[in-house]
């Protein structure tokens, strides 16, 4: 009793000044906005009136975002990028889940394929690019293939793990209720593996974004990655910074979209684990 009072007293004395801030709602919001605001202001202040080629004024960067991306290069670069990304990513998810389920259900197949999958996964995904360029060229199709080829591994390997860790008892129960193999997979095994599959899909999303950009930096004529590198090559430093910011925003939106979709689709899972509403 005495001990705990000493402890908590010490902690209270320690945290009074800042403690008030973290407890009130407004205080929390102020704290969260403090550093971002300071950083943006610092950037604006240090770059204001700058004539350095490496450090363009923030107002120029924002101006270049507005003139380049709203909406000049929107249809010609942003949309093609996102279309290739979407096609490649969903191809990876489809193939990854299908192959991963098959491998996860057949232990012998898993043993036979594991050294190969482990090795292919260890190859840095950007080095898939030279391979695909050499075999398929540099068109839209080859970019979609690069994205899919890189993003498929995290989905596949996580699906394998997820399928293997599905509760045996549930599967046996489904079998004794007379569910056929296909219905067992759709109604028992895939839902059981889905938490792990979504982990793989989230990793795959990051890989797919990276490959979307990289594939446009090598031998391309449009796309986000092409535009930023092109801006740098034509000595448009404000455009370079602007393009990077646009890519960052695209990354944020894609990630946020994934989280929203995941929260909706996996709602039943969090409900079943008592994780909803706090």
């Amino acid at each position, binding site marked *: 009793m005495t*001990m705990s009072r000493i*402890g908590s007293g010490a902690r209270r004395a320690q945290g009074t000044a*800042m403690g008030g*801030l*973290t407890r009130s709602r407004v205080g*929390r919001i102020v*704290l*969260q*906005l*403090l*550093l*971002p605001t300071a*950083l943006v202001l610092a950037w604006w202040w240090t770059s204001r009136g700058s004539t350095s*080629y*490496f450090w363009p004024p923030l107002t120029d960067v924002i101006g270049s975002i507005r003139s380049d991306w709203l909406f000049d290069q929107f249809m010609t670069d942003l949309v093609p990028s996102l279309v290739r990304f979407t096609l490649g990513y969903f191809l990876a998810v489809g193939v990854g889940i299908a192959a991963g389920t098959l491998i996860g259900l057949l232990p*012998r197949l898993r*043993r*036979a394929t*594991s*050294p*190969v999958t*482990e*090795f*292919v996964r*260890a*190859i*840095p*995904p*950007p*080095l898939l*690019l*030279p*391979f695909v360029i*050499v*075999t398929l060229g540099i068109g839209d199709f080859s970019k979609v293939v690069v994205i899919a080829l890189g993003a498929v591994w995290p989905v596949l390997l996580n699906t394998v793990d997820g399928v293997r860790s599905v509760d045996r008892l549930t599967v046996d129960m489904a079998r004794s209720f007379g569910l056929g193999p296909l219905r067992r997979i759709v109604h028992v095994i895939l839902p059981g593996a889905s938490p792990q599959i979504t982990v793989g899909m989230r990793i795959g999303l*990051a890989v797919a*974004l*990276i490959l*979307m*950009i*990289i594939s446009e*930096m*090598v031998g391309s004529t449009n796309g*986000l*990655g092409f535009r*930023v*590198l092109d*801006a*740098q090559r034509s000595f448009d*430093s404000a455009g*370079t*910074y602007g*393009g*990077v910011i646009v*890519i*960052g925003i695209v*990354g*944020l939106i*894609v*990630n946020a979209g994934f989280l929203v979709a995941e929260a909706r689709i996996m709602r039943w899972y969090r409900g079943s684990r008592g994780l909803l509403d706090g």
Partner: protein
Amino acid sequence: MTTATRQRSEAILLPLLGVVVVLAAFEIAPRIGVLPRQSFPPVSEIFGSLADLIAAGELWTPIVQTLDGWLRAMLIASVIAIPVGMLMGASRVGALTLRLPVEFLRPIPSVALIPVLILLYGPQGSALKIALGAFGATFPLLFQASYGIADIDPVARDTARAFGLKFRQRLRHLVLPTMLPYLATGFRLSAAVALILVITGEYIVGVPGLGREVLTSQSAGAYSQMYGLIIAAGLLGLAVNIGLQAAERRVLRWHPSQRARLEGRTP
């Protein structure tokens, strides 16, 4: 044959079979024209040119250049990620202040920084690939550091305070033992990311290292050499991962997760 021995021989034979089947497929397919032989040489030629590179001693310089960049990137990432992560994990004020910048920077595809890095560091020096690797490697380590310090047992913390342990003693006996397993995981994740990004920087921009060798052999049309180098990069990734796992086992020999593994139990 008993079930046990059959399982044991399967555990060895099946992976071997898998490797042999894949190698044979990629050996035969280009030879019979299923894959274009011009751009996809048979695996024997690929391994042949890899062996040539090793024999000529031309593989070691780029590997050392790549590993050098990777090591420096990891060093910079650790210096940034561990203190910032600890601040976020240990203090509510720290967590709230740093949350938005970190959450904004994390989803930026790191390769998008390449043009800005060319602008800042020029396309030749290794600063570019080091900065790229360090940026990507910072985040996994940062989050692991923040989880690690948040995991410190409050009772142990209060006990340490009640006994009046000095800062260094607290670090040695309280903070470090709790954080190490988290940091080990963070290092492993970050190491993989850093290696990928260093090689990417080399390949896209032409900074000296394994990635640039791939680029040069690609532009020269030396495809079997190009594939050999890609395989070498994959082996390097595997080696780094295995090496870090071994290091983790050594450093964390005392930790329950490793002790359970040594005794053959799953943790």
